[in-house]
Every structure is written in C-alpha cells, then in structure tokens.
C-alpha cells in the first residue's frame, strides 16, 4: 500500500451518455491515491474504457458526454480541460486498441509522446533509450511505419509513447492485450518500477485480473456502469466471487478451460 493517503485523482459520481441517448456510466466514483496503482476491473462493456476516457476528456470526440458528477485532479476540477491540458498536467492515457500513428515510424511515434516536454532533446533521447531497453523489439523495428508492425509491437509502441511524456499519472487501458505472456509480466514490472522508483501513479483497466490484482494496491470492480466492489487488492483477491468470476479459480484451484462447459451454463442460469 502506498503510505500517503493523499488522493490524486477523484472521480465523483459521474454519469456518461453517448450519442445523447445511451447511458453508460451510472454514477461511478473512484479515488486514485497518489503514488498508488489502482486497478479497474470488470467484464466487457462494464464501462472501464469509458471511465478512463471521461477522466482524460477524450469522450468528446466519440460523441460522449459527462452529464453529471465531477473529476478532480489534485484538488482541481478538470473536466472542462482539454485533453492536452491534462497531459501537460501530467495525466496521460494509453488508449485501448493501440492507436499508433500508422504513417509515422515507431521512433517518430515515440517522439510524439514527448511533444509536451520542455526539458530539451538530451532528456528526450535518454528516455527514448529507456523505452528501447524496456522493449528491445521496438528498437529493431524503429524505422518501420507503425501501421506495418504486429499487434503486440503496436501495443508496446503505445505504452512506450505514453512513457515518453514523463507523466505523473498514467491511465492504462488494457496494457496486456495482445502481448506475449512474458511481456505481460514485464509490462507490469515496468509499471511497478515506475511506481516505486519514480512515484508515478497508475489507474489501469485490465481484463487480466490475475496479474492486475497481483501488482495493484487497490481495485474497483465495475459492472454495467456501476462500481460493485472496491477495496485493497489483496482483499479482492481473496473475495470468493472475485475468485470465481474474475480469477477463474474455484476451491480446487484453476479449472481447465475444457472443463467449464456445463458449469458455465449453470452459472448463467443462476445469474
């Protein structure tokens, strides 16, 4: 657990509507403590991505709107800020689905990450090296147009790009998606290192509950646009419902995917 109880980012009871008619978040509240790693869990369509976009103000371009509630960063309301103003304040989001700049090379992609920085070329170059050490694969492909790299390479590129802005808070949307297992571990290790060594705070939406809860300090579970459970990660990990539905463990430990068939049907019935 991070020692400070200071809240960095506070989401108060927000409601989000898409296209004027589709109500997606129905009053979500979150607290991201300074220097902590907070996991946002939940099934498909629970509203994780929407929550992150509401925080980083990227909803606008998807015809979504925050109609109620407030987002407070360091004690200041930020929901009227533009996304780039938020980046300048140190909040950067890694979007779901990679969103690399296809026509730019991997290296140019990474450099755009440093767009808001004012600390000179040397520092940027140093960080570029850092990203390359995290993701050697990117170094090999640095001159390729991002559009022609593999899914995983693009994912690395998106994460690397966010790191390039030297943020103090990172909103990570499904960082592990499409990455090979050892890279997943690696990414979370990076998250942990940044968190511990540089004090970067994280809010991460993840489907890979297993890993996420292993690295996070606390977690929220979202279902159909509402927070249904919250607490320290360790507690959540032990919660029987979480175990069953998010970690895929029953009392006997992990089941084989082959064996869940009939069992799953029953669960649905009950639900």
């Amino acid at each position, binding site marked *: 657990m991070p020692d400070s109880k200071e809240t960095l980012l506070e989401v108060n009871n927000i409601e989000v509507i898409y296209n004027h008619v589709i109500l997606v978040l129905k009053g979500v509240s979150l607290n991201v403590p300074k220097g902590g790693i907070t996991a946002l869990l939940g099934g498909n369509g629970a509203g994780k991505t929407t929550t992150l976009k509401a925080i980083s103000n990227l909803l606008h*371009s998807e015809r979504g709107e925050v109609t109620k509630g407030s987002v407070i960063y360091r004690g200041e309301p930020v929901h009227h800020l533009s996304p*780039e103003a938020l980046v300048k304040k140190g909040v950067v989001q890694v979007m779901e689905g990679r969103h690399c700049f296809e026509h730019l090379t991997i290296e*140019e992609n990474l450099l755009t990450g440093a767009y808001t920085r004012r600390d000179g070329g040397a520092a940027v170059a140093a960080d570029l090296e850092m990203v390359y050490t995290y993701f050697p694969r990117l170094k090999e492909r640095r001159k390729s147009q991002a559009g022609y790299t593999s899914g995983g390479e693009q994912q690395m590129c998106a994460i690397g790009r966010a790191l390039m802005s030297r943020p103090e808070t990172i909103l990570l949307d499904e960082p592990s998606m499409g990455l090979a297992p050892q890279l997943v571990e690696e990414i979370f290790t990076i998250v942990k290192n940044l968190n511990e060594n540089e004090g970067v705070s994280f809010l991460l939406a993840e489907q890979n509950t297993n890993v996420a809860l292993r690295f996070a300090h606390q977690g929220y579970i979202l279902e159909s646009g509402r927070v249904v459970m919250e607490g320290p990660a360790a507690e959540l990990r032990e919660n029987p419902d979480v175990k069953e539905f998010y970690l895929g463990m029953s009392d006997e430990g992990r089941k084989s995917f082959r064996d869940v068939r009939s069992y799953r049907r029953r669960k649905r019935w009950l639900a």
Partner: protein
Amino acid sequence: MSADFLYGIEVVLNGLMAGVLYALVALGFVLIFKASGIFNFAQGVMALFAALTLVGIMEGQVPFAHLINAVFGTNIHHFGWQVPAILAIFLTVLVMIAFAWAVQHFVFRHLVGQEPIILFMATIGLAYFLEGVGDLMWGSSIRTLALGLPQGGSLWVEEMTNGLGGDDFYGFFIDKLDMVATLVALVLVAGLVAFAQYTKQGRAMRAVADDHQAALSVGISLSYIWVLVWSLAGIVALVAGVMWGAKSGVQFSLSLIALKALPVLMLGGFTSIPGAIVGGMIIGVGEKLFEYTIGAPYLGGATENWFAYMLALVFLVFRPQGLFGERIIERV
C-alpha cells in the same frame, strides 16, 4: 531546329509555369490534409477571400458596407483612405489568422475524430459561408489588384531565344508573372517542407492526421496545430489569390481555381508538399502538351480540364497514393 519543335519546348516551359500556379493552390490543400485529414473544399474560396480582403483593405473600403447601408439606411462605402500594399498584406495575414482561429474554434473543434467525408462536408459548408461573407463584406464586383506585379512576356527571353529557329519562330514566350510565381512557390515549398519534416510541430501535424484521438491522448493540442496550419493555408491562399488575381482581377471565379489544383493533388499525393509542386509541373506540362499536339489540332480543343484529370487518373492506377503521397496502409 524546326519551329514546331521549338514551340513544343515553349509549350513545355509554359506548362511548367502554369503548373506552378496550380501548385500554389494545391499547397494549401496539402497543408490542411496533412495536418488533419481534412480535404479542404474551401481552399479556393479562401484564396478569393484573401485576395478580396487585400484589395478591400488597400482601397480603404468599409467592410459590410452594403449590409450596413441596408439595415441602417446609411450610405457609406469608403473610409476615404488608401492603405499601402505592405501594410495591407500584413493586415490581410492577420485576418487570415483570425479566420483560421474562428474555423477551428467554431467548427472543427467540434468535429474531432469524425470520418474524413464528414470533415470534407464541413469544409463545403465553410466554402458557402465564406463566399457569402466575402460578398457581404466586400461586394461582388471585379477588383483590380494594384500590387505592381510584373506582367507580360519577358522581352529579354524572347530576344535571347529569337535566333534559335527559323523565320516563323518568334522566340520563347515566358510570362514575367509566372516567373515571379515560380520563385514565390519554390520559396514557399522549401519553407513548408522544412517545417513539416524537421520540426516538432511538423511531426505533430502528421500525427494528428493519422489519429485525432491518439494525438489528443499524447498531449498534442489539436486546436493549436489546426490554427497553425489553417493560418499557413490562409497565407498560401493569399499568395495564390494574388497571383491568379493579377491575371483576371479579383472576382468570384477565383474560387474556382481549386478545380485546377485537384488533379495536381491527386498526382502529387494529398500529403506531400513537394508532391504539389512536382505534380503541378507534370499536370501543367501534360495538359498543355496534349492540347498542343492532339487536343487543339484533332479534338477541337478545350481538352485541358479533362486531360489533367485523366493524366492523374492514369498515374493513380499505378500508384494509388500519388507520386509522393503516404502509402495507404492495408493491413488486417
């Protein structure tokens, strides 16, 4: 050398220069397309508007005089002063920057992340709007642009080359205005290429074109980038307006020069600044040469418009992204 051949060369030379004039218009398109994926239909109207504004300011005309007179029953037209050209150009540039800001603030800010065709449509709305505003502001009569640009064939060139052919060769004809335009265009292109390739803003601009959302997410200010490029495009439009306006007077039809720029864009590639100039030259030479060798003698003339497009079309079949355009990424 035979006169026919020499005239062929003359046609090529003039085609090159005409191409440069097309390129001046195409440049504005490229800038905006490169920075936002917006196919700016209003580029031609912007050229008209910029030129009108320049003339209006120089002549000390009262903007919106007609409207004011109609509403208030007054009868004002002129301030009664003349503004020197340099100052007027400066003021016009300011107007174009204000215009860029307004466009971004009132329109495109609200359309971030929309599909290209929607953005294109918005620029069509903008074209109508700006055309109306231009008319309201400065009236719809033909104006003469008195910037003192040189006009007419260069006698020097004509005399130097007179001896190349026989009696029925009169030396090469090269318009002085075209030479000035070429010079200006080259300077512009060099400057813009440097800007786009070697500056941070240039890179950001290309990023924005690829993905608005992602650009926002890394902290690129779309507003800033867009105001910047629209201002640049506005200035380029002013240059184009001045050059074309010198030939025809400043009038509505100036907005139609956009049609001459489209094949250029297509051929050069929508995203390439050098492509605009090279494309312009190829189109210019191609259409003039075709008209000279085939169009006028055998097809009854006036083939230039469609030939330019056909030429570009044929090019595209082999290179769908144009000569220097960014490769269209096809992946699953």
